């Protein structure tokens, strides 16, 4: 068990390291020239050269990479080309906003996803189930930003129920959190529904039914519990969707956050900032994945047994 955990942690670290390298190669090695990007399209060759030496781009790529890794290990993500602030400071000041957005959205996703999934399975094959499934299909086919735009149109512009601009209360957060939450709830909904329907046809359910257990208790206690285990492992997929969605939603609603920071940094050609923000998000993603793996071993006795047997 402990050995397995250690192996998993080691694998996660190597994946993060790989992601760092991949991003470094994409941003520093691809044909696009950062110096030209920073100096502007119509800067003189001399000026481009000056920028190049200033940010240390003239050196061989291997040397740059070594320095980059070394500073990363010291916890230094570099300095913004634009504001001259350390990238890590900017990211940590923006992180709470992103965290509260994604946490709120996960809550919404769990409530909506599990709730509707249960309803859908309970009325399996009936019109309510078909309605929910159709809505789910429509939702995965809608671009997230358009959903956001429509929700602003309906709830703010037409109905006037919810403000969009920040006024210090939590009301302006309702739409972004709700949009992101509903958006990421679809995979959860489908998994819970299919899992429940699958579980209900398993022999142990038949046994319980034969022993005279009430249909309600059977459904909500025994079947739901089994159907929720795969839902936990889905969290790792969910977190990726959440991060991607946060970039869009933060930009759309002009909220603070790491996602918007990254998008704005692209606009101002601020490479260290883009790199830092993406790295931050990827590390978070890998970390959550690791936690999910550990959590599954903790809640599902079968995986423990398998680990012992192996």
């Amino acid at each position, binding site marked *: 068990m402990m050995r397995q955990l250690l192996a998993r942690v080691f*694998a996660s670290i*190597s*994946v*993060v390291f*790989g*992601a760092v*390298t*991949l*991003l470094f190669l*994409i*941003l520093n090695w*691809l*044909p*696009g020239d950062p110096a030209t*990007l920073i100096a502007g399209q119509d800067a003189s060759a001399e000026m481009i050269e000056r920028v190049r030496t200033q940010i240390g781009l003239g050196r061989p790529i291997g040397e740059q990479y070594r320095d980059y890794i070394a500073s990363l290990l010291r916890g230094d993500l570099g300095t913004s080309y634009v504001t001259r602030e350390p990238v890590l400071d900017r990211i940590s000041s923006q992180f709470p906003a992103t965290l509260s957005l994604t946490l709120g959205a996960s809550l919404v996703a769990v409530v909506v996803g599990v709730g509707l999934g249960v309803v859908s399975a309970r009325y399996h*094959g009936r019109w309510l189930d*078909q309605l929910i*499934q159709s809505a789910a*299909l*429509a939702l*995965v*086919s*809608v*671009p*997230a*930003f*358009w959903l956001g*735009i*429509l929700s*602003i*149109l309906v709830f703010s*512009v037409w109905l006037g129920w919810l403000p969009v601009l920040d006024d210090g209360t939590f009301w302006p957060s309702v739409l972004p959190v709700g949009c992101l939450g509903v958006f990421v709830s679809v995979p959860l909904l489908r998994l819970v529904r*299919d899992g429940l*329907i*699958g579980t209900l*046809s398993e022999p142990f359910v038949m046994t319980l039914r034969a022993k005279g257990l009430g249909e309600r208790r059977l459904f909500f206690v025994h079947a739901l519990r089994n159907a929720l285990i795969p839902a936990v492992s889905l969290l790792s997929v969910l977190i*990726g969707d959440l*991060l*991607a969605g946060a*970039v*869009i939603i933060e*930009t*759309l609603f002009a909220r603070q956050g790491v996602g918007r920071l*990254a*998008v704005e940094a*692209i*606009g101002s*050609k601020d*490479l260290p900032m*883009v*790199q830092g*923000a*993406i790295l931050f*998000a*990827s590390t978070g*993603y*890998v970390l959550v994945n690791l936690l999910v793996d550990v959590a599954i071993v903790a809640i599902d006795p079968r995986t423990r047994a398998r680990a012992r047997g192996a």
Partner: protein
Amino acid sequence: MIERGLDRVREGDGALPAGVSLEARATRPGSVWSGLARRLEREAPSLDDAGPAASADSSQPGSNGEAAVRRARARRLSLAQVLLLSSFAAVAFFILCALVPEWVAPYAPTLMHGDAVLTGPSAEHWLGADQFGRDVFSLVVYGARQSLLVGVSAVLVGCGVGVSIGLVAGYFGGWVDLLAMRLIDIWMAVPNILLAIALSTALGPSLGTTILAVSVASVPRYARVLRGRALAVRGQMFVLAARASGASHLAILRGHILPHCIAPALVLATLGVGNAILMASGLSFLGLGVNDDRPDWGYQLTQARAYLTVAWWAVTFPGLALTALVISVNLLGDALRRRLDPHGRAHGGNPPATTPRERAA
């Protein structure tokens, strides 16, 4: 969902395991299933009208319950067909728009009607006009080209690369497999849209960058699924036989492994078109897509967003077109999946334990 019910009925009817679809089996002459398929085929017309006379005609000692199931089956089938047909029609319409937009659109997409700026839907401008007085309907029609172009090319590139990686990893196994899968893990650790952002930053926004960014994000999905299939097929007798008779690895991959993996790849690719279109529109929205004069739904939405309070039609219809296209493509992909990949069902009964997939697990 609908078809799943149908398969249940089929299984109950003739003890068909959840295997390849009935029609596909029946194409093999003399197979165990052909007799059963012929019988079902004979019954097929009687299912359609499902009258009392028809059920009396049936070769089975049909009880009332059985007849009811058949009627339900016939009704459900038609619903599924209606959905499928409308998806086909929608996709065909968008392809028409992409190929010859001038046949469909009433105006040129760049034509500015000075007297129509920000006017709502009317007889002249069916879906209204935007902030420049451009006809929204014409813009939507012309925008189809960009979305389909990006969607299809991104899938071709991503599918090609992903399938190759997956096949090679699964077929050779060992350290090649280990290396490839680690690479895919890393690839997946950077969330899709952030990877696309990094690529767009490095290469600058252009049509090529968008296609590359979207396709790169989709590679791991193809690679993972195809690796699993290749892994399952590589130990089969016919592969060993080919190897023993001196066929090269490349020939085996192309001639024996690939044909066995083509169905899931095809399904993933179809579903991937919808995803690619969505992601490309998201990139456009973030300002990372193509932002030249070519009409593009994502960019159109971004521009119209500023006029949200005064012109709902300019933000509603391009998004609606985008959604309609993606839903249709997804429905087609779903139908294809049911047809080609019966084992992939969430709960369509357990496949026999001897399927390659089981052995790989």
